[in-house]
């Protein structure tokens, strides 16, 4: 395998996404090829830097909860305003309850 082909696999190698056989092949190639080794070190540095940046990107704690609640509220309003969907949803809930009771009875009998 030529260096150009090895280079294309370095990202997967850095991410541990290669098969064992390919992983060993690339590791062996890097030991003997200063050019590819330099490319790999540069790539690793970039990926580590980006991961450090990612770890610093935390959303504000309340934002997630507020957004989730708003979406669920919209969902419920939508369901309430659509008679067909409301009826379908109600039927789904009744069926789920019935299946849960039947399962309970079966395990009780067993």
């Amino acid at each position, binding site marked *: 395998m030529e260096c150009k082909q090895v280079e294309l696999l370095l990202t997967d190698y850095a991410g541990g996404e290669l098969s064992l056989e390919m992983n060993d092949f690339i590791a062996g190639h890097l030991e003997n090829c200063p050019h590819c080794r330099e490319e790999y070190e540069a790539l690793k540095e970039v990926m580590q830097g980006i991961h450090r940046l*990612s770890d610093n990107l935390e959303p504000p704690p309340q934002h997630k909860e507020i957004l989730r609640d708003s979406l669920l509220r919209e969902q419920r309003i939508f369901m309430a305003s659509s008679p067909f969907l409301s009826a379908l949803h109600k039927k789904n809930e009744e069926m789920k309850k019935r299946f849960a009771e039947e399962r309970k009875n079966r395990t009780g009998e067993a």
Partner: protein
Amino acid sequence: MRNEEDLINALARGEEYALEILFERHYEPLWKYSLTILRNPHDAEEVVNDAFFRAYRYGRTFAGEGSFAGWLFRIARNLCMDCMKKRNAKIEAVPDIHCYDKRTVAPHNQDLRVINEALDNLKLEYSEVIILKDISGYSLGEISVIMNKSLSSVKSLHHRALKAMGNLLKEQRGGEHHGM
């Protein structure tokens, strides 16, 4: 893990669990994507809010046509572009304003600031694929759906993006060294 097609169909039927699962799966990746593109937490919050609401309403009507992540990120991308256009419009009026607000999301250490700047100086397609893969944590397969490209194109794009970023970091370090 429930597949997205089942979840979208459940979402269209109004099942709350589907909304909760999709939200939980994509909230943080979307937040990180928006914040890294826009560099302003307030703007990122607005984009995340809008994107989820629009993707949710779109998903209800178009179950079976595409992936939730695909809609969500395409919507978010357009919202981010709109936000940046508005900021640029302010630049034309007041030329000394920077095109994004570095003050609000300026990493607290030099190393991260350097990474931030390198990302900022990449062409958009490169920074997007890096943000989606290495910051938001999506697989290349998921990214190929989000960016509407083949898997091999995304793989090659990611590789070129990382290389371009490496070159930029080398240049920046060379510049800092000469500045000393």
